[in-house]
């Protein structure tokens, strides 16, 4: 009470977003941060974070070691020029069809490669928050390979997200306005002074910065004029063509001037609505849904100063609210989080190529393929009866090694050629990207058998003789927390029924059981 009285007027919310007291920093808070600011960590890393304290840990996340992952192989501009020429120069319909098929196949292969590359990077990165924010910006400035069809452009955009992931939001937004993948996706590269295309201008305000209701149709029309003359050259680089640019006076958000695109973004970022919009989205992504408006106001006040992302994240990750009961286990893991975290914490092997694409597709989130410019809705919408069923089937397959065994009784074939019960065998990655006439390609060519989970990385020979020690070890990896007694005991009950010392497959069963719980789907 005394403390409150000494506070200056107007700071009645100053108890909000106060720093988590040192004594409340525990193994579980460290684990909570690891899952939210990244993709989970090993128990030994979490132990280290617990010891070094919250501030040091957050600084480490905000200023990580360099990720030395090499760029994806053979990713060069305009790499399918030859195949495109073959399509163009084809002399018969059959030849054209064949050339088009070759182009589509080569493009898809390279896109699978890109998805795989990013997945591995998230899996092994020493900079998890950078990758997590790259994923956030990808969902925010959503751009889909379905329309862009250029692996090079999408990789470049991914690197732009990564480069500015923790930097400045204004810098990032300007970079995205001249990002070739985005320019293709929202038709900016066809926008001319005579016919400005409003697609980008509209989404810039509605989805990227201000949110609906904070601008008028007139503002869209005027700002669209400022984003003219943006072109892509044959090396897939941005080029400004001044004679396509409308340099005339524009009145945008009540301000008149000969604005160009960057100036439009500067004007937008002066609006408190923009700081609020992004702060809210970040809080929802990292902490919990539907926060108090006062909490967001406070974050937005900070963000509005300069749109620096690091201080904003530092405030979020240091706050008591971020570690409150309301925040714990409140977020449904996205499919990317589910897949990467399973690899990172439990050490399951992940498939690659088209199989990985198919896995993501059936889970409901394929990197580089957001459903539309709004990005993924996230939250509970990740889970429906089909995606949850698939998560559980996938868990078994990842742990035991992916098999193509048909678990359906052979005499009762289900009425679909895609109905092999191995989920990895029945995925249809081609469905979205190729015409239905390509359904013959629903093969299992990439669904090779993956190695089963290496149990020795989880438990020692000594652990195997003691069900409780074994469960303790794998529980710490799967759930990233100190045990919830009820959950722990039920799993231990199952372990106790198995012969000792616990064999590899017995332990794999227990890992799968943990993954096939509601608790594993949240973080």
């Amino acid at each position, binding site marked *: 009470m005394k403390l409150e009285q000494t506070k200056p007027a107007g700071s009645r919310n100053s108890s909000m977003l106060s720093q988590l007291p040192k004594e409340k920093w525990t193994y579980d808070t460290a684990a909570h941060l690891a899952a939210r600011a990244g993709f989970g960590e090993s128990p030994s890393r979490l132990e280290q974070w617990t010891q070094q304290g919250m501030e040091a840990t957050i600084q480490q996340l905000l200023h990580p070691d360099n990720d030395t992952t090499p760029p994806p192989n053979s990713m060069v501009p305009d790499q399918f020029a030859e195949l495109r020429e073959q399509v163009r120069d084809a002399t018969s319909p059959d030849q054209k069809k064949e050339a088009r098929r070759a182009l589509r196949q080569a493009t898809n292969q390279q896109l699978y490669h890109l998805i795989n590359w990013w997945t591995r990077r998230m899996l092994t990165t020493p900079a998890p928050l950078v990758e997590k924010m790259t994923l956030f910006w990808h969902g925010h400035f959503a751009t889909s390979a379905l329309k862009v069809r250029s692996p090079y452009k999408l990789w470049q955009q991914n690197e732009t997200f990564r480069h500015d992931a923790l930097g400045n939001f204004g810098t990032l937004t300007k970079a995205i306005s001249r990002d070739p993948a985005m320019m293709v996706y929202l038709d900016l590269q066809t926008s001319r002074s005579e016919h400005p295309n409003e697609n980008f201008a509209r989404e810039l305000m509605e989805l990227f910065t201000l949110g609906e209701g904070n601008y008028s149709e007139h503002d869209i029309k005027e700002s669209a004029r400022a984003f003219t003359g943006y072109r892509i050259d044959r090396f897939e680089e941005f080029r400004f063509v001044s004679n396509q640019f409308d340099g005339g006076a524009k009145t945008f958000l009540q301000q008149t001037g000969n604005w160009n695109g960057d100036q439009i973004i500067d004007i937008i970022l002066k609006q408190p609505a923009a700081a609020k919009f992004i702060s809210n989205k970040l809080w929802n992504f990292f902490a919990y849904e539907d926060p108090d408006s006062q909490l967001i106001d406070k974050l937005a006040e900070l963000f509005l100063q300069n749109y620096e992302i690091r201080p904003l994240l530092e405030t979020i990750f240091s706050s008591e609210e971020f570690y409150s009961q309301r925040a714990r286990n409140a977020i449904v893991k996205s499919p990317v989080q589910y897949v990467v975290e399973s690899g990172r914490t439990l050490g399951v092997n992940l498939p690659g190529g088209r199989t990985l694409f198919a896995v993501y597709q059936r889970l409901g989130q394929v990197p580089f393929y957001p459903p539309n410019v709004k990005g993924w809705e996230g939250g509970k919408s990740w889970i429906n*009866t089909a995606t949850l069923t698939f998560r559980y089937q996938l868990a078994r397959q990842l742990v035991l090694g992916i098999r193509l065994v048909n678990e359906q009784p052979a005499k009762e074939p289900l009425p679909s050629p895609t109905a092999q019960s191995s989920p990895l065998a029945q995925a249809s990655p081609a469905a979205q990207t190729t015409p*239905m006439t390509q359904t013959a390609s629903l093969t299992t060519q990439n669904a090779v058998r993956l190695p089963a989970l290496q149990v020795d990385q989880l438990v020692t020979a000594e652990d195997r003789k003691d069900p409780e020690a074994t469960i303790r070890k794998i529980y710490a990896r799967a759930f990233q927390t100190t045990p919830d007694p009820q959950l722990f005991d039920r799993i231990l009950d199952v372990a106790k029924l198995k012969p000792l010392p616990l064999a590899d497959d017995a332990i794999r069963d227990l890992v799968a059981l943990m993954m096939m719980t509601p608790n594993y789907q949240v973080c």
Partner: protein
Amino acid sequence: MSQEPDLLTRRHFLRTSILGAALSWTVPIFVERTFSLLNAEAAEITTQIATGKDHPILVVLQLAGGNDGLNALVPFADDLYYRARPTINIPRDKVLSLDGYVGFNPRMAPLKNLFDQGKLAVIQGVGYPNPNRSHFRSTEIWQTASDADKYLKTGWIGRYFDNCCNGEDPTVGVTIGSQLPQTFTAEKNTGIAMTPGGRLGFGKEADASEQQVFNELNGITQDHDLSSGASIGSLDGPSEPKLSAIEYLQRTALDAQVGTDKIGAILKRTKPEAVYPKTPLGNELSLIARLISGGLPTRVYYTSQGGYDTHNAQENSHNNLLGQLADALSAFSTDLSSKGIWDRVLVMTFSEFGRRVSENASKGTDHGTAAPMFICGGNVKPGLYGNHPSLSTLDQGDLIHTVDFRDVYSTVLNRWMKAPAAKILGRDFNALSFV
């Protein structure tokens, strides 16, 4: 197997003795709905409790990508059509005439047969004002039944579930595929999504104790013992309680198990009674036919056929798609007729938009506006509805729609589903007479 008696008991129990029972957080969503409903004295007359055997069924079939209506329902008597499409037109002598002005693409011969048998209605020129040419946005408009400048959170079928299917089984809506379409997005029951072969469980090799622990951890109990414990006084009306993420997951797991167990049981005792084409759509419609004949209490099924985004060299690909569509629908009709349930089923196709009148430089067509919808079923009033859009008066090279797609939805809701269309669609729309 052993699941089925439990389910029957549970369903029976739901209808007879639900009042006065306790609500536990492991109760599946549909049970709780029934609960809330009875607690609210089931006052809402719009609510219909499914009997599972006699209610009308709607099958929504999405032609994804933007179906080129002009090459499906061809205005062959109009020279403007041939002038606009010098290389990709359907030759006049190949068109299957319906009324002397328009006719079907020859690959749609099976649909022409349905038309002649009086089982098919064609609504011409369907669209909406201020058409949007983005796949995403236009699909969203069709799925939510919004105006072009409005954004709605829920789908039109989702609002039908919310208004008319409170307290029902999760399988009231079934989507074939792994993602629920926005059409099904609802405040409450969104239906289930299924992929053939998916079953929720710990796995075949699991021993009983593993399966039991799996069920427990997922909040799945065989007997949702509602008859003991406190009163339901704490439950106020049919509003959605705020579920935590874990509670939501437990309920979805239960819905999945209830749904997949039922579906699994139905697939064991039903079989197709027609030869379906070996296409994804053929397989999906065959599956839907089995689920209907097996008595799944589903009101709305949803499936889609992709590939209609025909910007390039569309002739073969588009004709093939129409052929696959016609073959699959024809088999579906035969199958359901032999099963004696074709009269209870209405199939409605839609596509996010039609395509431009003029072909483009790559012998394809770009995103356009109005297109026909096909409605078939044993109880359809056959014929052509609406006027074919003019080929001479265009809006920036695009057809001007003559029928609002919500006129069609409204008719389906009011006349077929016996649902309050104005409430679901937000206002009154014109009634058509195809049902």
